[in-house]
């Protein structure tokens, strides 16, 4: 078997399938973590899945494994399609696919053994960081070559977002992981905290958010069967997100002893983020105005639409919780965990799944194995995610209020116990959705050949 086989859209297919598999693994890891919050002794204190470790496995798997693979796979479809030029090299694509999966697998193994740099989303140790950087560089090179030989002169806004994302992510990853410091992957003192959130923030902003927006910009007009509402708006959205989102990482540590002026930039910029967010959403929603029927007739459209609604909610909540007066209550609590799931699962994850279901039939040349299963997955995730939001936000408010009233940390645990039980239960829906998705995607790619579309 030739793992670098040169087949049209082979890279995309590989990434989509990997994403589905990592989603199963990642949500199961999340589920284990959630169970440990409810019954710490139940799983018998196995060291390599103790909470401190499984949490890192969970975040890395769902972010890079599930959402990351799906978005990178989608980009490998969008770039050639929008430029009307075949991908420069499917072999380079395959090489990046395998290295990516190797890096993630190595990440799971090392994290479970306790090799970690302990900085959120930058936990992976140095050798794996290098692997990730190589993948990012390979992908960028492949896209750049495709761009240079392109037959389509016009660069659609999705291409803008994709190119910007890879330029940004490569350097963000490099600096954020302090790869020139292999031993610790960090610098020293408060600048280290600032750097860590420069990274944590920009990886969310310019890997997950911008790639997901690129997918939404592509799919919505096609599914709605109408041109994009405004190309000018899309450019405004692009440049403002680039300038604004890159400067506000400090909003994650507004209450840490960081210089005040830096906090001012972070809070102002966070509120300013409403500009790029709303320009994108207004543009997308005006494109689909009067055509919600079309959107919801297509399961991919449904996913992307739900993603766009979560984008609005996340980005209304985001500026709010960057205000010092709000963060004094919400910081360090489950409120933030709720926000994280809204952003990564509700917005980026659902949009990415929309991309997966949109692209699959187009790269296999036949319809999805089962549109019905995809629909069931949609509902499971939507219900699970909505539940997460309600449950985690409530738990967060209970914690925050308790602490500020001088309640003992342990006393609050019983008060949020019920919510932790609900969170774990809702996790079953999401993990179930992931398993259904894996089956459906696998069968769509390799199942018995059904009707062609």
């Amino acid at each position, binding site marked *: 078997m030739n793992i670098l086989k040169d087949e049209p859209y082979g890279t995309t297919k590989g990434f989509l399938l990997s994403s589905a598999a990592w989603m199963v693994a990642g949500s199961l890891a999340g589920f284990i973590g959630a169970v*440990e919050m409810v019954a*710490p*002794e139940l799983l018998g204190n196995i060291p390599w899945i103790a*909470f*401190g*470790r499984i*949490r890192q496995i969970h975040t890395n798997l769902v972010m890079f494994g599930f959402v990351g693979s799906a978005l990178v796979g989608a980009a490998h479809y969008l770039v050639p399609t929008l430029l009307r030029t075949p991908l420069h090299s499917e072999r380079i694509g395959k090489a990046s696919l395998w290295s990516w999966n190797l890096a993630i697998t190595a990440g799971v193994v090392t994290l479970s053994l306790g090799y970690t*740099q*302990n*900085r*959120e989303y930058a936990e992976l140790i140095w050798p794996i960081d290098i692997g990730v950087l190589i993948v990012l560089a390979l992908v960028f090179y492949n896209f750049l070559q495709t761009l240079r030989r392109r037959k389509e002169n*016009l*660069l659609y*806004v999705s291409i*803008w977002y994709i*190119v*910007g994302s890879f*330029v*940004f992510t490569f*350097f963000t990853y490099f*600096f954020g992981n302090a790869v020139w410091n292999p031993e610790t992957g*960090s*610098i*020293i*003192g*408060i*600048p*280290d*905290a600032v750097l*860590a959130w*420069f990274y944590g923030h920009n990886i969310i902003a310019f890997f997950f958010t911008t790639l997901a927006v690129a997918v939404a910009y592509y799919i919505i007009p096609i599914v709605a069967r109408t041109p994009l509402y405004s*190309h*000018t708006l899309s*450019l405004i959205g692009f440049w403002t997100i*680039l*300038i604004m989102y890159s*400067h506000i990482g400090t909003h994650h*540590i507004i*209450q*840490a*002893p*960081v*210089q005040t002026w*830096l906090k001012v*930039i*972070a809070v102002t910029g966070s509120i300013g983020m409403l500009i790029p967010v709303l320009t994108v959403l207004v543009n997308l929603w005006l494109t689909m105005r009067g055509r919600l029927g079309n959107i919801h007739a297509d399961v991919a459209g449904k996913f992307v639409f739900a993603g766009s609604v979560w984008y609005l909610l996340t980005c209304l909540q985001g500026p709010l919780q960057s205000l010092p007066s709000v963060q*004094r209550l919400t*910081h*360090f*609590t*489950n409120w*933030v*965990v709720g926000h994280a799931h809204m952003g990564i699962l509700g917005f980026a994850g659902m949009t990415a799944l929309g991309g997966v279901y949109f692209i699959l039939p187009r790269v296999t040349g036949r319809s999805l194995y089962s549109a019905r299963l995809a629909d069931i997955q949609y509902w499971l995730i939507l219900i699970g995610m909505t539940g997460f939001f309600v449950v985690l936000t409530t738990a967060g408010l209970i*914690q925050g209020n308790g*602490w*500020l009233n*001088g309640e003992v*940390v*342990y006393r609050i*645990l019983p008060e949020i116990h019920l919510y932790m039980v609900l969170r774990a239960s809702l996790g079953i829906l999401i993990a179930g959705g992931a398993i259904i998705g894996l089956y459906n995607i696998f069968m769509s790619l390799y199942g018995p050949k059904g009707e062609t579309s």
Partner: protein
Amino acid sequence: MGLKINQQGLPYLITGSLVALVLGIIVTILIPALGEPGPSKLARSYSETELRGRLIYQREGCWYCHTQQVRPPEVGIGTVQVTGDIGPETTAGDYALQKPVYWGTERQGPDLSHVASRPYGAVTEWHILHLKDPDLVNPGTVMPSYAHLPEDELEALAAYMLTLK
């Protein structure tokens, strides 16, 4: 307008992204790093055992449940065992010698910035007992037991805890 830029956009696009990135790094990392204060009274360098303990703290991911950052609104209010015992507000200088900094992300258990200043927290044996059987010491806690760690690792971890004054 949009259409024209869209046609010759690639150079703008790449340069623009790089400019935004470099600006972000200069404004939000480099300039602030220049103005950092030196170590405070609480900052300390670690002995070999303490450093080992610190790395075990990192390896086990304790960081993901315990913060080391007392925020302004909770000074005098925040409670671990008795009212207000969370300790004094954290200053930038407290972190000055730490690499990496474990300031925290979610708080499942109490803040540990000043754990060694609490009566029990200055006692090595208490820490080892607590690490082995958290539920015995704090009924209802969600902290897992670390009884599987070898004795010398538990001691190193306790030694690190004692540095958190």
